């Protein structure tokens, strides 16, 4: 029962925060709404016994992405982050229609077609009795197991991700630095 309540609570928070984040005029408020959304998702991950992912969610999304977004806004917009006079969105009706269309015609049929009966019997049972089980049920995985899986079958993926991150880092630095250099030259030439 507790689990059920927590799920609905977190789901409502997540959806509301996401809507707020994408519709708010004030960008800084938007970032904080986004942070609440990330936190709600971390809560959902914890609820789903994926605690390492929850930790990484908090660490990467709230700790790093949120801060990066704040920095980007401070560097590009005016410091106050909001401008009531400016039109900040366009095509609200068509956007909503398109999003709703995707939901109704692409995602929901997909969910309906998923064969949900393929759940392992014992797991389904555990879910049914999750209320009293949640205190005693051992987590289905440990961080150690995750680490071992990461190193043994997925080592190449891990390396590729590491390479990707390095490339992204260098790329980000190059992109934001290069622009400045061009600007300097432009300023210097006339």
């Amino acid at each position, binding site marked *: *029962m*507790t689990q059920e309540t927590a799920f609905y609570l977190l789901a409502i928070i997540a959806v509301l925060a996401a809507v707020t984040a994408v519709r708010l005029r004030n960008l*800084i*408020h938007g970032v*904080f709404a986004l*942070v609440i959304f990330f936190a709600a998702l971390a809560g959902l991950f914890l609820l789903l016994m994926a*605690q*390492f992912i929850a*930790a*990484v969610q*908090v*660490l990467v999304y*709230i*700790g*790093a992405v*949120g*801060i990066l977004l*704040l*920095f980007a806004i*401070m560097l590009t917009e005016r*410091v*106050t*982050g909001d401008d009531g006079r400016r039109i900040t969105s366009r095509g609200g009706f068509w956007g909503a229609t398109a999003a709703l269309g995707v939901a109704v015609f692409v995602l929901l049929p997909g969910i309906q077609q998923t064969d949900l009966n393929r759940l392992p019997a014992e797991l389904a049972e555990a879910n049914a009795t999750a209320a*009293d089980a949640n*205190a005693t049920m051992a*987590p289905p995985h*440990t*961080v*150690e197991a995750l680490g071992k899986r990461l190193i043994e079958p997925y080592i190449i993926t891990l390396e590729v991700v590491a390479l990707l991150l390095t490339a992204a880092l260098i790329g980000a630095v190059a992109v934001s630095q290069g622009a400045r250099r061009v600007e300097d030259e432009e300023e210097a030439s006339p």
Partner: protein
Amino acid sequence: MSWELIRDILITTVPLLVIFPSLFAFTTWIERKALARIQNRIGPNKTGVPCTRISLFGLGQPAADGIKMLFKEDIVPKGADRLFHLLAPIVALIPAMLVLCFLPLEFPWAKFVQAPVQAFLLDGAVIFFFAITGLNTLAVFMAGWASRNKYSLLGGMRAIAQMVSYEIPLVLSAVIVVMLVGSLNAADIAAAQKGYQWHLFTPWGLAAFVIFFIAALAETNRSPFDLPEAESELIAGYFTEYSGFKFALFFLGEYIAMFAISGLAVTLFLGAGEGPGVAAVPALSVAWFIAKIFALIGIMIWLRGTLPRLRVDQLMAFAWKFLLPLSILNILIAGFAWHVAKSGAGTGLKAVVWIASLITLYAVARGLNRISRPEAAPREYKYAE
């Protein structure tokens, strides 16, 4: 929601909520006294028991401060974002309180009722610790931005830059311990150091501890890294516009964060609650844990009384050019040493590894220090002659 669950929650969290805030009050008194003595003053020594002449070395001062804070006018600047201005101190306090739950404080009364000895017995306690400590940055930004004051905003931006930079050496030095123990669980890390095999007593552990401690100073905005709240430059940085109870909350949050990060340092490097007499009286382990936390906080206060504040460029150069390479090298050395130890090498080889790693770390630290230091040209005085 069974009764046992509620009991367990109460038994593991209420002590944390009682002990640390009351220690906070005591710590402010210690800090004021110690700083005063360092500066050849006496410090608070008048406030004692109310309505009497008993002063008790000024121990009533924290209570008096608290009452003063409660009754002060709560001022919100005219252009401020009222909601965020209100939320910021709360957001600053909650993560700090939350991470206390990850410390392996083994409260003795938990054993009598078979409750878990730790508030959160999570597998990834250490990574959760770092994840939740990172939320503090957001609170600082909220406070700085919501005040609509350029000094606050500057302080907030400085704080973010500083915290993001110093989080990397902080995490990398903790990684060493995680690597050596093979677990992210705080209780496992504490157990692995039983028998005075503290990580502090190894060269790589010592280096990691020093890096961790320096980065922790920066994370908690303690002097000499208190640039975000530099009074002489930014008035008070991100809490310039805070007064009364909100300011008190910020203050509390800052001290709780100090306790939490010192507690993590104690867990990772100083053998958690281990100490003489724990074997006979297990209850002593909590006392030892808190005593170690206080030792670290004492060093923080001592450093605050000693060192002047860094410049922003020095701060950044120190994090990126000194601490970061050193902590990466330290990981390599620790990994190498771990392999040597695991391969069943003799004492001689181990000693060689010890001495070699000590020398390498020291030499590299020296070299980095020389390279990373901003070049000091001979000063030219234009006006002061």
